[in-house]
């Protein structure tokens, strides 16, 4: 059993049902399989061997989904590159993953052509919707990938590497989480458990699934693969906003809607502001919030407007979704609900949650190969939890420093290191302040060498060349001295707690 063979079974069982809806275009499982087949043949023709990395740098479009299956078919390792990353970050991922191949679209390519051209490992790049683009030896239009005659597939292996998902590390350097085909299948199995369940008679709710996160984000990839295993269609919107999602809800019944708490909050506001009556009912849609803690109040507002529960999921890139909260409005404090079967838990003395998932990732990418980690390892979540009598878990704090902003993880260390590259900055500490809309707002506390403030525009320009915009601090506070904790250390947690006093003491804010 593999994700690809499961996909082929679904294609055989329901070839003519819709697999992907891309805005106004819909294609069937058969058509998707045919496209994936052509892509796989093209990649093999270009010399791809199992284990070779393929960097994927695409917006929400059909070709992205076909690429997932082509990779699974021939043992290519997908390296998704988020479109929000900037040149320097893309360069790092290409270099670190040692990608031999690249698929981008016209938009990404026109912005980052120099990065692609400058890569020492890339042998070939294909550009979607870039037909007028150059016909060089190394960089070809997408159509050139689809013309190869079907080639012989290498025999599939469950231990083939399947994906490297880069995620914010605590050290400030993105770490590459490696999944094998076998662990990816397990993680997709957990994602399936978050969806309206399969019954012995068949699948409940055949409505399509949609993610308000970009489709290239690992959670959306898992959602896409899980939905197809259940025979459901996946909707891709070229531009995902609360308004385009609302318009989608009005034209298509969904069985599953995924997003970060901020997405659900914005969708709620768009629904309230909408003049369309009646609003579509979401009583039979699983609306699943993930990526960050979902406040219970949001769940209550959600139910009032849409008539259905807002659900919560909790997990790590290394483990997959491992907790399910069927109704985030059911508790006063934020609760992550119940662990899924097969998930094992422990708590440290400080209350930090340690988990052992049936879908533990294979290991971390070291630049050349996988540093394999024991399959039965315990993983620290960085979250402080409290078990309730009914077996569910409340989150009572966060142990580690990673910020959650719009469901994106931001490493404060990475932002600090970027700030310190500016010679005028002597000290920098970045911490998160709770924010009602985006979860946490990154705030930078700065001490400059000459004691003078730096204009925000200058900082923005400086950071713009180093890190993606979503990582930029939303506020800069200039101080004469960075406050230390009783232990003489910089404590981001303490700074966050003392935020109001710090604003008062800052040179200005």
């Amino acid at each position, binding site marked *: 059993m593999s994700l690809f063979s499961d996909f082929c079974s679904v294609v055989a069982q329901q070839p003519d049902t819709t697999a992907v809806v891309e805005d106004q275009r819909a294609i069937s499982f058969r058509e998707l399989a045919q496209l994936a087949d052509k892509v796989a043949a093209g990649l093999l023709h270009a010399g791809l061997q199992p284990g070779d990395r393929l960097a994927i740098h695409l917006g929400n479009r059909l070709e992205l989904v076909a690429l997932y299956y082509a990779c699974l078919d021939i043992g290519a390792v997908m390296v998704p590159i988020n479109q929000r990353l900037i040149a320097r970050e893309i360069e790092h991922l290409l270099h670190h993953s040692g990608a031999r191949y690249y698929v981008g679209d016209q938009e990404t390519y026109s912005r980052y052509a120099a990065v692609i051209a400058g890569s020492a490992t890339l042998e070939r790049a294909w550009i979607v919707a870039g037909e007028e683009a150059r016909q060089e030896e190394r960089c070809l239009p997408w159509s050139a990938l689809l013309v190869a005659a079907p080639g012989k597939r290498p025999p599939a292996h469950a231990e083939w590497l399947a994906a490297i998902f880069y995620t914010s590390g605590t050290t400030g350097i993105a770490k590459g989480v490696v999944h094998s085909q076998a662990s990816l299948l*397990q993680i997709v*199995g957990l994602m399936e458990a978050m969806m309206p369940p399969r019954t*012995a008679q068949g699948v409940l709710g055949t409505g399509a699934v949609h993610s308000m996160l970009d489709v290239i984000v690992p959670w959306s990839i898992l959602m896409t693969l899980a939905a197809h295993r259940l025979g459901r269609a996946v909707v891709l919107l070229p531009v995902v906003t609360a308004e385009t999602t609302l318009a989608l809800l009005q034209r298509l019944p969904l069985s599953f809607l995924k997003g970060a708490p901020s997405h659900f909050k914005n969708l709620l506001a768009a629904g309230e502001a909408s003049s369309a009556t009646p609003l579509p009912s979401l009583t039979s849609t699983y609306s699943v919030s993930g990526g960050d803690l979902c406040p219970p109040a949001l769940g209550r507002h959600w139910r009032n407007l849409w008539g259905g529960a807002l659900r919560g999921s909790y997990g790590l890139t290394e483990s997959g979704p491992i907790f399910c909260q069927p109704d985030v409005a059911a508790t006063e404090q934020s609760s992550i609900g119940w662990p*899924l*079967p097969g998930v094992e838990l422990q708590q440290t003395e400080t209350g930090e949650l340690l988990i052992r998932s049936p879908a533990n990732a294979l290991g971390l990418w070291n630049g050349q190969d996988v540093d394999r980690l024991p399959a039965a390892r315990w993983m620290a979540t960085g979250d402080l939890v409290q078990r309730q009598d009914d077996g569910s878990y409340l989150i009572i704090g966060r142990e580690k420093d990673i910020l959650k902003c719009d469901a994106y993880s931001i490493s404060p260390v990475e932002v600090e290191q970027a700030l310190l590259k500016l010679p005028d900055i002597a000290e920098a500490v970045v911490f998160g302040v709770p924010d009602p809309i985006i979860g946490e707002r990154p705030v930078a506390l700065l001490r400059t060498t000459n004691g003078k403030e730096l204009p925000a525009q200058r900082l923005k320009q400086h950071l713009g060349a180093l890190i993606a915009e979503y990582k930029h601090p939303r506020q800069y506070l200039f101080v004469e001295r960075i406050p230390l904790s009783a232990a003489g250390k910089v404590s981001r947690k303490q700074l966050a707690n003392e935020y109001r006093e710090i604003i008062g003491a800052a040179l200005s804010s």
Partner: protein
Amino acid sequence: MNEIEKTIVDILVDDLFISTPRADIDLNANLRNALGLDSLGFSELRAQCEYAFGVKIEDEDFNPQHFDSVHTLAQLLIALQAK
């Protein structure tokens, strides 16, 4: 082994194709560690039990405590049938 436990074992062996022979299944053994059930297997077991026993297993009950062993799952199903 009671009837419910026997039915669960039937599902594990006949529908989920676990590798442990029927005679070797310990009713108190952990479904994941001892019987090798994976994340897909748990969802399948849930669906098959709902069908076989005519009950609905809510998300709150689809957890490691109830799905620890054949025995704990049987206890859950008895409680659900009594509802």
